[in-house]
């Protein structure tokens, strides 16, 4: 089974103007023939949200790498939170609060993914597209996040299997998610697959970076991060 995996994270115009760092982070790493991906969006109002986001991705990668692929993701969530608290120490959790979305795809095409807070988690299994992220009930930027208390019931989790070419998982922070037409998410997912599968990863990443940097929504301001893993062969 073959996969294509690609991701990019770009700093938003607002942080660029203010000379501040990217408060999004991402990890995309191969693991035993499969892939691990994570994206995190540090809360803009918090002093060390860049550290929080970066640590969340690092911790997730480390834990998923060492955990057996047969272990369900929900079981790893308390450990991820615990290790994140250690990683950001001595920074207060409140100052490093961050959203976190991550996924693991095994060499056999088993996919597990989870999300806490804003952003968008899209999957396609057996040709069937699904938005895992529930509809937002209020307004933008009001989100659950990794903080001092573990919020097991606020996570959205999914598992499935990639059985067809074009099946995949896409994780993105709200800088991208909030500016996507909700009615065309499935088309967006397929367009990503088409575009990324036609390029090698380095060119694909450059293309993705340029798409995110040159975002079409007027007055867009947020950092933007997107990671995608697709199955490309039978």
């Amino acid at each position, binding site marked *: 089974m073959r996969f294509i995996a690609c991701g990019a994270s770009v700093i938003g115009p607002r942080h660029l103007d203010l000379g501040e760092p990217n408060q999004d982070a991402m990890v995309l790493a191969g693991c035993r023939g499969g892939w691990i991906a994570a994206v995190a969006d540090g809360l803009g109002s918090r002093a060390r949200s860049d550290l929080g986001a970066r640590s969340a991705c690092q911790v997730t990668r480390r834990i998923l790498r060492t955990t057996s692929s047969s272990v369900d993701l929900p079981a790893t969530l308390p450990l991820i939170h615990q290790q994140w608290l250690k990683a950001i120490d001595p920074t207060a959790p409140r100052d490093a609060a961050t959203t976190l979305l991550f996924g693991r795809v095994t060499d056999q095409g088993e996919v597990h993914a989870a999300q806490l807070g804003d952003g968008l988690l899209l999957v396609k299994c057996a040709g069937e597209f699904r938005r895992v992220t529930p509809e937002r009930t*209020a307004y933008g*930027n009001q989100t659950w996040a990794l903080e001092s208390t573990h919020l097991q019931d606020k996570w959205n989790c999914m598992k499935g299997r990639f059985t067809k070419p074009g099946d995949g998982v896409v994780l993105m922070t709200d800088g991208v998610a909030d500016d996507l037409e909700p009615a065309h998410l499935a088309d967006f997912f397929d367009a990503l697959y*088409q*575009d990324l599968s036609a390029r090698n990863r380095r060119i694909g990443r450059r293309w993705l970076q340029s798409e995110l940097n040159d975002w079409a929504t007027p007055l867009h301001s947020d950092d933007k991060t997107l990671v995608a893993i697709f199955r490309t062969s039978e």
Partner: protein
Amino acid sequence: MGFAKYQEDIVSRYVGDLAMRSIKVPVSPPKPSSPNTKNQPDQRTKKMSSLKKFAVATPRPLPVIVLADTSGSMGENGKIEALNAAMKDMVSTFAKESRLRAEIQVGLITFGGKAQMHLPLVAAHGVAGLSEFKADGVTPMGAAFDLARQLLEDKDRIPSRAYRPVMILLSDGQPTDDWEVPFKALRDSERAQKATRLAMAIGPDADEAMLKDFANDVEAPIFKAHNARDIHRFFRAVTMSVTTRTASQNPDISTAFVVPPPDDDALDLDFQ
């Protein structure tokens, strides 16, 4: 971003290349191309296809909703004139603000005789010739709360990607309708309750207890306007607070609500 790039470089050198190297074209694309289908993914007719067509073509809105008492008593002591002038100043400042990372939208609900949308929620820069409020009739504040709640709950008019709305209530008297049930509905509404609520009591007859209950921004306790100039000062503070939010790192975070001091040389008679 540095970290992300670093990680991916590591991966591409040592891990992922094995999976990637042999892929020149997709072995099996997800769907055969069909010339008749609309909204299909880009068929790569261009070298660089685009994700732009999936992006929303409008900026993220920051709604500002004013609930203005336009009952008959507002016609006394120049209150309605001061309110009209302050409204025009605020809308024109919102329209001219050029640093914005969000589109300020303004909606005006009046309650004088009856509650109505005086101005539907529209981009401030698109407001041409704001019609003046006219003071007349009783004070149906409860009906105004209902209109505000309906607006805040309407995902077509205020999408989920909008920044947290700001709602401003100003009144110079007691509500004359059953306002408590609509007020509770507003405060209990899952969506509407998330809006920032500011309040201004105009003159000595305003229902300050109710206005205090309405306000929910710790940065901005109820403001008491004693004269026409105070109405201007309050709306200057609203304008400053909203425009600061749109230029700040996170437009959802309340900013300091600072009412400018009165001019020493201004001659103003207090509302009776």
